[in-house]
């Protein structure tokens, strides 16, 4: 049994480069899928709040599918399933442009959009209907009332849930290991195979994930605190 020695990994420039690359890829997956999820969530919400039964039912089905199927299975369906039935031109282009990364972003982003849109929806629903009536009575139009009165309050209510789901999105980026995306947990596995220092490299990987998750949680807590009018937020 070899003694515990972090220097074997942290002193080896090759391993450090692999770790740094893994962190970069994890952040690329997390950030791009966050952006995709958030923009899609706003779109889904707009459809949900507009009249029209078909649009509403479609959004409800979208949300229901993405919340009730395990994220891992969704990623597998994308990469092992949908990837293979795409027209050959598209799949050739994808395989030339690191398809694993694209499908990781796509799969995680589309999945998380369902959670984000539900968070925003329950945030908006928790704003009392009187607010809309009062804003309209003061001469705001529907859009203007939404923009200046309802959405600021709704987003504020939704903030804690959005932060929690952003943390889980970051954590879920590790699922991309099953489709072979070269992110942090992939780098950890690879270094383990090269160095046989399982304990040390798992410890480093765990601490890195924990550090970034706690940073996101802290940023979210600060944002929630700032958004509270009691702490001097712009009303």
């Amino acid at each position, binding site marked *: 049994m070899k003694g515990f020695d972090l220097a074997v990994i942290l002193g080896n420039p090759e391993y450090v480069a692999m770790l740094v690359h893994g962190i970069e890829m994890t952040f690329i997956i997390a950030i791009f899928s966050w952006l995709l999820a958030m923009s899609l969530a706003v779109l889904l919400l707009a459809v949900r709040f507009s009249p029209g039964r078909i649009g509403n039912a479609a959004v409800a089905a979208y949300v229901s599918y993405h919340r009730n199927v*395990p994220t891992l299975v969704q990623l597998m369906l994308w990469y092992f399933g949908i990837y293979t039935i795409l027209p050959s031109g598209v799949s050739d282009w994808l395989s030339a442009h690191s398809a694993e990364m694209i499908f990781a972003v796509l799969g995680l982003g589309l999945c998380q959009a369902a959670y984000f849109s539900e968070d925003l929806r329950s945030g908006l629903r928790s704003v009392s209907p009187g607010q809309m009536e009062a804003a309209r009575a003061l001469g705001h139009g529907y859009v203007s009332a939404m923009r200046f009165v309802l959405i600021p309050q709704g987003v504020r209510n939704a903030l804690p849930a959005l932060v929690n789901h952003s943390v889980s999105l970051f954590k879920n980026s590790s699922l991309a290991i099953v489709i072979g995306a070269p992110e942090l*947990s992939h780098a950890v596995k690879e270094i383990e195979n090269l160095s046989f220092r399982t304990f040390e490299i798992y410890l480093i990987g765990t601490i890195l994930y924990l550090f970034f998750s706690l940073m996101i949680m802290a940023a979210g807590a600060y944002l929630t605190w700032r958004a509270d009018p009691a702490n001097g937020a712009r009303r």
Partner: protein
Amino acid sequence: MIHDLIAIIDEYWLLLLIGQYPNGPLGGLANTLILSALSIVLAFPFAILLAFGRLSKYRVLRWPVTVLVYVTRGVPLLMLVLWSYFLVPLLTGADVPSFLTMLTTLVVYQGAFLSEIIRAGIVALGQGQMDAARALGHSYFSAMRYVILPQALYNMIPSMLSTFVATIKDTTLGYVINVPDLTFAASQVNNQLLTQPFQVFLILALTYYVICWSLTWLTNVVERRITRRRAGLIAPKRRGQFQTSLTPNATEQP
């Protein structure tokens, strides 16, 4: 397309349902459900202990539990699965089946999440319940056992059901360490067929969808019922009530 799906289900339904069972370990959907049910059953007492620890006035108890909860909230489940795959055989010194490794991981992971739910449920009851129980002569644990927990746990049934759904979804990570569950069975089917990966993984996704959707639906029904009961709109069912309605005297009296 639909024809393909039916053909695959027709050919492989037994493998997807119970894996290689008579000739090998139990697998497939049966194993997924057993794994999730076992881990939630085992995680539950563990979570109550953790919640007590987090609410304790002693730092020695509070701090380690807080650290555990934050670590499980901040580290991907995948990383924890890899840890147990490495540590459990090392600590027990035995060749542990991957099912047990996954069970250990899920108990710790869901235990930490459930403990936060239980803690919130206990805190939401308010200090008054505990004070009143203590004033009536209950000890701390007796008050917890007879006054706090029955109320807190009843209010938390919906959250626990949704934790069960989350557990079913989390069992898919056993795929990384080759736990013979539904996902594993589907990828076996895919390896045998080779030509229809989309159809196979669509069946997998739809199966999970049906299970988790029905449980989510059940959760919503239970939640609505509990909210109404707490608001006093429906009376709790008592044994006496049921019996009186069956006695002929009660109805025939003028």
